[in-house]
């Protein structure tokens, strides 16, 4: 789990291939939009378990740039692509 020797790269969750795992480093909330939903968006993701330091696995993504299916903290989530693009992870090498 501690891949300190391997190169650590921060990429959006969408860059992970099917079956790959990563550790969440940060969530880039979209500010603005007038509705103050930046806070809600970030909070929502974290409430579902995507806090920094959490390990996630991308199972697959729906076709035509559809949502991602991920495993996090023992549960299976569907995550819209726009949202997944704002979650940054360090890829975990096997």
């Amino acid at each position, binding site marked *: 789990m501690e891949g300190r020797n391997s190169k650590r790269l921060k990429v959006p969750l969408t860059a992970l291939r099917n079956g790959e795992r990563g550790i969440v480093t940060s969530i880039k909330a979209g500010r603005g939009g*007038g509705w103050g939903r930046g806070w809600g968006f970030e909070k929502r993701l974290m409430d*579902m378990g995507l806090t920094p330091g959490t390990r996630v696995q991308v199972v697959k993504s729906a076709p035509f740039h559809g949502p991602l299916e991920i495993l996090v903290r023992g549960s299976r989530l569907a995550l819209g692509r726009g949202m997944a693009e704002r979650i940054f992870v360090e890829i975990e090498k096997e």
Partner: protein
Amino acid sequence: MTERKLVIALAGNANVGKSVIFNYLTGLHQHIGNWPGKTVERAEGTLHFKGYTIDIIDLPGIYSLSTYSLEELISRKYIAVERPDVVINVVDASVLERNLFFTLQLMELETPMIIALNQMDIAKKKGIEIDTEKLEKLLGIPVISTVAIKGVGIFKLLEKAIEIIEKGEKAKPVEVKYGEEVEDRIARITKMVEKIQFWYPPRYVAVKLLEGDEEISKEVQGMDPTIISTAEKLAAEIEKLHGHSCSTVITSERYEIAGCIAREAQKLVPPIKAPIEERLHTLTTHKILGYPIMAVSLLLVFYSIFTFGDHTSELLSNFFYGWEPIFASIFGIEIVGKLVWGGIIEGVIAGVTIALPYIVPFYIILYFLEDSGYLSRIAFLMDNAMHKIGLHGKAFIPIMLGYGCNVPACLGCRIMETERERLLAAFVTTLVPCAARTVIILGLVGEFVGIQWALMLYVFDLLVIFALGRLAFRTLPGEPTALIMEMHDYRVPHPKTVLKQTWFRLAEFIKIAFPLIIIGSLAIKLAEVLGLLEPIATALSPVTVVWLGLPAITGITLIFGVLRKELTLIMLATLLGTTNFAQVLTPVQIIVFTLVAMFYIPCIATITALVREFGWKKALFITVSEIVFAISLGGVALRLLTLTT
């Protein structure tokens, strides 16, 4: 001995079997309504146990107690302000960590509680074994393991609840302890908060202020603004120390605690075999196979509902109209008889012949699919398509409902997270051809012009949904939210819960739709008796005759159609004096008429549903714009079709 009254609230994540437990506890003594002034459902029931009358409140299924959604806010306030005697926290044993995250928040609210560790059977299948005694010790809360769909553990749950209440001693849950830097600041704010009067416990307020909770900040601001400025300063300090926002730090730490407890209480053993549920999931969300499977399942669902509905609807109609001569012999065929039969009784018949044959089976199948987990897979597959009209995958569910009936579809838009999305989704569902419109499309165009034209109208309808949906999405202020949805493991639905949910939806439909259908029928019948229909038809003729190229009497049928769409067809037959429409209408007229009937107005029951959900202004706006749209569309279609033929 007088019965003592108790209140027990059920709280927990979505899809953990909360409603199954609720049904076991309350049986038929249930009441489903709304939270005062809110469009969030409130399920309540009573039971009698050991000399107590117990009120059970089923709180909405939520993942957190922040203010992300109305459901979360309502639940939090209910627990803090109404103070139920005990909260039963229903926990999914197969996803322990995420569920405990919610449990910890309930504990922070300092409410007396018990945990119902549910779905132990599913957990076991996944290779998860949980030591309930250990969990009890770690949390300081009684834990009862249950398998709700088999009724296992429910009795023990109640006994435990009573025991806790009778003992009367304050529950001693373990305090949720954060890191040192955070704890230090919580303590400082708690001291300040202790001086003000607030319905939440002081420590809870302190934690929430550090998290930047909107509701609590606003309330405290009014009482003592210095607390807010201190909290903001301290939160900034934490942010500096950790490099993440304070709300991130606290949520992370809370999840860490949940994770630690889960890891200590559960033992993971590799499951015996790759469960069939897993393979079913892979298949139904497959990037290629998933779509044909979905298409076939949905077609099958609709085909069986329409076949069943058509048949039963006719049987019911024949049965009811069989009473007409008997009725006429009592009330006569004069004005009174006409009004009572044609106004009131026919209104009731109309409602019954739609509700029973179409809506009931529709709901049964829908809840069956939802409970099993398939609906969330469909939302996953359709997310991308829904984004094109500014919605996410979940919106596909009310749209699908719309093909049965627009009324439940509008109410079903509550699953969307924001008001904006609810409205958008509801607007789109009113454009979906419901069962009644399908009757018109197939009965008129399919029968007299050709089935390929009928199919083309369906395709055209999809295009309209897409175009108008996109237009509405562009014009409504606000940004779209993305999909975050749990896909719980496939499971066998609990039939009793499915039936009960269907029953409550049916009751809701009757309450919303019936009064207006009856009042509307009566009004139109009255107009007919008073001989007002002819003048109305003449008044409408600039639109119907000149612009749409239809016979003047179609104006009357379109008015009737507001009551329920298929009346346009029935009235057309009555007024034209034939069911062989090819004799009196040209193919172009048939298509134009059907097009207008499809879009020109949501039926009266749907309008009522819109008013209930969004207020009369928005409902009126949708109604008027659809009338304008349909009439313009019909006229354009007429000119285009005459050009080409």
